[in-house]
């Protein structure tokens, strides 16, 4: 999977609740909201690429 423009998204009503509820990214050309749930293949792949140093996910606003 090729991730572009990856960015964490907070709960926009309460930044102290559910931090980083999703990752927004363009994945192989598709615009995806990815739940931060281990076992989700997109999330797992994003974390793998972060660990390998090939992907940086921008912090939430």
């Amino acid at each position, binding site marked *: 999977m090729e991730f572009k423009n990856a960015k964490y998204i907070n709960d926009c009503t309460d930044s102290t609740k559910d931090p980083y*509820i999703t990752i927004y990214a363009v994945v192989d050309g598709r615009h995806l909201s990815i739940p931060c749930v281990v076992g989700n293949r997109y999330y797992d792949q994003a974390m793998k690429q972060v660990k390998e140093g090939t992907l940086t996910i921008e912090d939430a606003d």
Partner: protein
Amino acid sequence: MSKAAELAALIANVNKGSSLANKNFIINGAMNVAQRGTSFSYAHDGTTSAFTLDRFKFIVSNTDEFDGTLTQATDVPSGEGFVNSLKWTTGTAESAVASNEVMYIEHMVEAQNVAGLRYGTADAKPVTLSFWVKSSITGTFNSGIYQSDGSRIMTKTYTISSANTWEYKTLTFAGDTGGTINDDNGEGLRPIWNIFVGSDYTSSDSTSWGSYSSATWGYGHAQNAHATTAGATFLLTGVQLEVGEKATEFEHEPFETTLRKCQRYYIRRNAAGVYHYFGSGHVEAVNAGRIYTSFPVEMNHIPVLETSGTASDYACYNSDVDACTSVPNLTNASTFETGIQLANSSNAFTAGRGCNLLANNTTDAFLAFESEL
């Protein structure tokens, strides 16, 4: 016909399997459901992995010049009750198939639906894969089954004898007494149809169950001309995978039945009009609203949400139509339902009001939930 003959015919029909419901592990084998669209173009970008008609995935790796299209076609075998097929058409041909180049179609079957095959035990049951195929190029092709949990594979070859003619193929795979299929929502079995296969994928015999390696993927495949022939076609329909050593009549089912099965893995809601309503909720703050939506079936796992990628394609109606300033995002998602978060950084929403998520004067807006294996 005598009563005895009628009874014998009835028993024979039951034994043939034609009256058994849900015998087919394949979902959308008749290629009728196409939530993602009916035509998919693949540029010569080397490697592509993408779903096409529901549940069927197309993979091409390491090519150079090669491109083409996959479509939902109406070319079908006559007299079999089909109305659709999956059709590959080569656009630009590859100059030659290098050792690491490969193209195939695959279909992933959920593990808990095939765990009853008892792989890994002495009771492991055989399965039979049957399908209709039509190709502009004749020759020997490889098809197989990959087993994810055990990382094992078994493949077979079949011959396409006549160009541009529908042919019915059946391939039986022994039960794998050394295999593993977990009783869970992961991938269980993955039937594959190789269309062209470089030599890296053909050097290891996989005609009986054994450990997977890339060299086992397409053992015996001997026809790669779909890669090197502009305009070459390969069509597939009537795909069935069932328990036993004999193929039975294809199990046709109502469209809505197949659609519901597909929606466990993918649900797409397109804007039916320029102000299409996707769902209702409430405005929590001047910059934030949420809607809630239930899925028609429990999804395989918590899905991702796909959008058009253009924030202004979406709006929050909470007295006025206020465009979103970022694309909708999932929130509090489960396999049964999800919240969808709407944002407006200009604080245009009115807190405390009900709201709808709607297309903002465009039919480009859509929501798609994906939990494919």
